[in-house]
């Protein structure tokens, strides 16, 4: 799992999610951000996600909450239309997501098919839907 290190101060951690795909983002809750415990993923807390001025998705997390729940999980859901469906596999492979973590210092992460294949769930061959799941551990220093 990738790690983001940040000072344990009073600033919030701002997470920006920038999806790039020919598929449609499958609303509602097309981008979900949660934080959860390291040992138990079901002990989780959902974070509010808004769309910022640039049209990207943004969530703000209190660093104090990250002490108990240091894993950030970001799920992005997609759906293709009937014309795209025969090329669903290629559209999945072309889908990329950039993530920016800003808790005082900015660090970028990404999901690309060539290098992060395990983060993609293509879904069933009969379904038009697929999803990308990113997990990043926040290390408070």
């Amino acid at each position, binding site marked *: 799992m990738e790690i983001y290190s940040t000072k344990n101060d009073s600033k919030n951690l701002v997470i920006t999610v*920038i999806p*790039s*795909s*020919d*598929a*449609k*983002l*499958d*609303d*509602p*809750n*097309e981008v*979900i951000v*949660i934080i959860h415990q390291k040992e138990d993923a*079901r002990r*989780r807390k*959902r974070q509010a996600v808004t769309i910022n001025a640039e049209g990207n998705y943004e969530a703000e997390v209190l660093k104090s909450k990250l002490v108990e729940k240091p894993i950030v999980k970001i*799920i992005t*859901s*997609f*759906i*293709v*239309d*009937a*014309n*795209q*469906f*025969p*090329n669903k*596999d*290629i*559209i999945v*492979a*072309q*889908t990329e997501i950039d993530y920016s973590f800003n808790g005082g210092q900015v660090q970028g992460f990404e999901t690309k098919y060539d290098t992060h294949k395990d983060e993609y*769930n293509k*879904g*069933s*061959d*009969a*379904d*038009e*839907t*697929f*999803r990308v*799941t990113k997990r990043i551990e926040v290390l408070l220093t």
Partner: protein
Amino acid sequence: MKHIYIILGLFFSISVFAQEKASINDFNFESVTNPAFVLLDETPTQLHTPENLKSLSVYLANGFSNTNIAVEINPYWYIDFDEKRTYKKYRGFKERDGEEYIDPLIGLKTDWSFSLAYLEKEFEGFTGEKRVAGIGARTTIFKFYNKSRTKEVSKAITKTGVESELSTEFELYYVLETDNPKPGSGTCKSYAESIELQVQFQDVAKLFIEDEENTSLLQRLNIENITPEKLVEYYLAERCPKVESFVNNPKNIKPNIRIDGAIGYSVLFKEAEINASTANRFGSWLTADAAVRFNSSSYLHIYAIGKFVDDGFNIDEEGVYFNESFWDYGGKLELELNKFKLGYEYLKRSGDGDRFRSVGNISYQINEDITVTGGFGKDFPVDNNLVTILGINWGFDLGEKAFE
């Protein structure tokens, strides 16, 4: 009752025979999707669409060694445009003076496709199978959506998911509890028969109902006693029509005018070797479709087509190859009422002898696999032929083999 079966049996036998003798229902006025296969008179049961160029090269290497290639490549999917992709950009949405419009030339960017075929096939007049290869390209040159249809497309692709609080919260819970994507139309169709899917969704529904965090929601909605089965049914009843509506939006909201172009070239190896001399067949198509809409599923299509074919896949009695070339041009009126289509087409063929095709046809799609079609008219008659056909076209997934 027995007599009815006998009559039906005879009727369908005659229909199949008639379909082999005349091609009254197979003139394609809509876009030519795979010109390489059209030129080889082939319809592959499965087209390979490579995930990347490496996968394509492996497929081609295998295909050339066993004479079985049926591949389609859309370059748009492989090009890194160095910009953020979105579904709206893919559909060609742009803004002018604060108003949305769909770029009528977006098809030149997104709809290019190249098809490649290589197989062994026995053509009429030839003895034995010949190796043939074909290459083709097609694109949508122009598609115009007027203001009202642009607004409809925009509406159909914005806020496409569930809206009720219960479905929204359950869907969120499902996505968090499982690693699965949200359900698509495959799940919607299979759920009622699939025990596996029922268990998968209802297990999550049980957790959702038992989760203390959802107690207040269920109380507020006055459904504390809802069963997992009912909860999933409620969710899918809302989700599935919305999936269907979004997925089929390109088919349900057609452009006012659409022009497609295609070109193809194929070679027939006269001997059973790749380095043997070849006969060639060339074809090009231009099709236009003006769609007048009456309601969400009823259209009047006015089609026009221009087609040129130079066909060298001919052999005379003395074994000498020769070329025939012709132009087809004409039009078709087709009334599309949901699953029912009624049409009339007229085509003039000029070139090696002037002929025409004048055909009325009718079809009804019973389900995704079966369409009943019928036709009546004259199909490029050499003599004064009159062809009547009523039959069934059907399609099933027949497995992995590219060509039958």
